[in-house]
């Protein structure tokens, strides 16, 4: 019994919260671009937040579930359907055997996450499930899903008493992702070690102007349209960079390094994105406009802490709701 790929999407891979501990070997952490969404969908189905999820880009794969499962989708809105009928984002859904999950129309965002309570039966590589496409390892065969791939599920659960004869049942609670929907169009960034290399005008411009995500925007990094100027050309020896590092390229363009960034780089690190705002950035795609706002280390840390608190509360709430749900149904027999 497994999850079958009936039709492959453009880039659907298995991800988790990243592979840490091996950057000294040049092995980058990778992991989900929108780690907030990846954690929330896992929590919704009662999984640990570090469990493997599927990261989907649009057009996405079409999935056949050969067994009864509980799933949740969240992140970008690609109009998910089960057997042609809409299912909501951020809600657990129990689906019957041989149901088809499909993503019919792009509505919003760049990356959608699928969590499965029965869990994908794949091996960890160096402590993580995430796919390293460049090294063709991790995840499912180290690559994106292809047509006819079959991935076994680890567990089997009996959902007959919930489903009765229906194709699917949407459980009646939804994760509160409020903080993400607030009008923080402005992505908080902290000046980096080479900030002073920018001219005074460029330093103003970065917080004043819009930047447009360029056509070169993928899991490795986003090129931004709109140039900044350096005071002087600067040769830097390679040093460590991270998810969210903003580098100034020799042509004056900015690049924000994303989940599949290299471990080291030699361009000036003029700033970095507050990690709590990386999920916002992860849902942007070519053509989207973004604005930055200035913050400092202290506030970036506070944002991260608040997000963490929010996730912990969600986790407790999800656990409570699932337990309550099971008890009510079983109690009614």
């Amino acid at each position: 019994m497994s999850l079958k790929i009936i039709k492959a999407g453009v880039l659907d891979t298995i991800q988790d919260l990243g592979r840490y501990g091996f950057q000294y070997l040049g092995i980058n952490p990778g992991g989900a671009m929108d780690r907030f969404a990846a954690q929330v969908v896992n929590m919704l189905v009662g999984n640990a937040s570090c469990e493997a999820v599927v990261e989907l880009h649009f057009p996405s794969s079409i999935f056949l579930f050969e067994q009864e499962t509980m799933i949740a989708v969240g992140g970008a809105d690609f109009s998910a359907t089960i057997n042609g009928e809409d299912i909501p984002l951020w809600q657990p859904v129990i689906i019957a055997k041989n149901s088809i999950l499909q993503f019919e129309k792009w509505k919003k965002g760049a990356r959608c996450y699928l969590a499965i309570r029965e869990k994908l039966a794949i091996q960890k590589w160096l402590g993580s499930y995430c796919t390293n496409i460049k090294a063709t390892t991790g995840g499912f065969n180290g690559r994106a899903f292809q047509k006819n791939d079959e991935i076994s599920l680890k567990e089997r659960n009996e959902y007959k008493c919930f489903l009765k004869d229906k194709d699917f049942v949407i459980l009646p609670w939804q994760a509160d992702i409020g903080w993400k929907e607030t009008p923080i169009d402005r992505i908080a960034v902290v000046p980096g070690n080479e900030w002073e290399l920018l001219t005074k005008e460029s330093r103003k411009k970065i917080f004043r102007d819009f930047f447009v995500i360029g056509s070169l925007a993928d899991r490795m990094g986003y090129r931004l349209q709109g140039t900044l100027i350096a005071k002087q050309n600067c040769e830097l020896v390679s040093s460590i960079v991270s998810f969210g590092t903003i580098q100034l390229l020799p042509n004056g363009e900015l690049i924000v390094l994303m989940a599949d960034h290299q471990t080291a780089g030699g361009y000036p690190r003029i700033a970095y994105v507050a990690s709590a705002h990386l999920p916002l950035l992860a849902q942007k795609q070519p053509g989207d406009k973004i604005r930055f706002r200035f913050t400092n280390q202290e506030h970036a840390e506070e944002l991260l802490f608040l997000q963490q608190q929010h996730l912990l509360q969600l986790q407790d709430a999800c656990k409570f709701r699932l337990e309550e749900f099971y008890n009510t149904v079983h109690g009614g027999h």
Partner: protein
Amino acid sequence: MENSASYKIHFINDSAVAIDFGNVIDREINAKVITLFNYLTQHPIEGMIEAIPAYSSVAIYFDIPLLRKKISSHKKVYEWIQNKLNQLMLTEFAGLQTIPDLIRIPVCYDNDFAIDLPWIAEQKSLTGEEIIHLHSSRQYHVYMLGFLPGFSYMGEVDQRIVVPRKPEPQSILAGSVGIAGKQTGIYPLNSPGGWQIIGRTPLKMFDQNKAEPCLLKAGDSVEFYSITKDEFENYQSGSA
């Protein structure tokens, strides 16, 4: 203290810090980096996720939510980290340097693999044999790994074979040995790359199936020795 004047602490993001010894490629500074990295690996700081050595800096990733729970609430984690690292830098690392492992790497400098050797020969008015001899007759130091899993930045090559990177990256096959500036390195995977290619090793620089997936690590010493194309092919089919 000699240490205190010679480093700077700055944040790479809200969860990672660099201890930076200056923007240079220098054996002594890199030796400091590697000693500090080895020390941190053996004596991890509270809340540390990993440490990563670069040419002249060591980056350290921290578990911020964990540290936030552990330290008193009125104190910011980043301040705690800064203090902790300043304390750490008072440690006397001088005696902790280890003898580097020496790894000998076979390279086939045959024209079929050494796609940029003729160009270098022309630029530098050297014969192919002279370039091969210069490249394979000294010991290199592995400064750091980066760019790709297992990609090693080694130096320095003989002044006579220092060549610039290519203006545009080309696709390069795994095992290719290249030169860029004073550096030499080996591509562990098929990848786009801009280094000038002078040969290929039959060794697997990166093997995902091994517990230690990369053949080299920062701090190693490396020697190249020339092999024929026959030896290269036998190496691939035969020995491990």
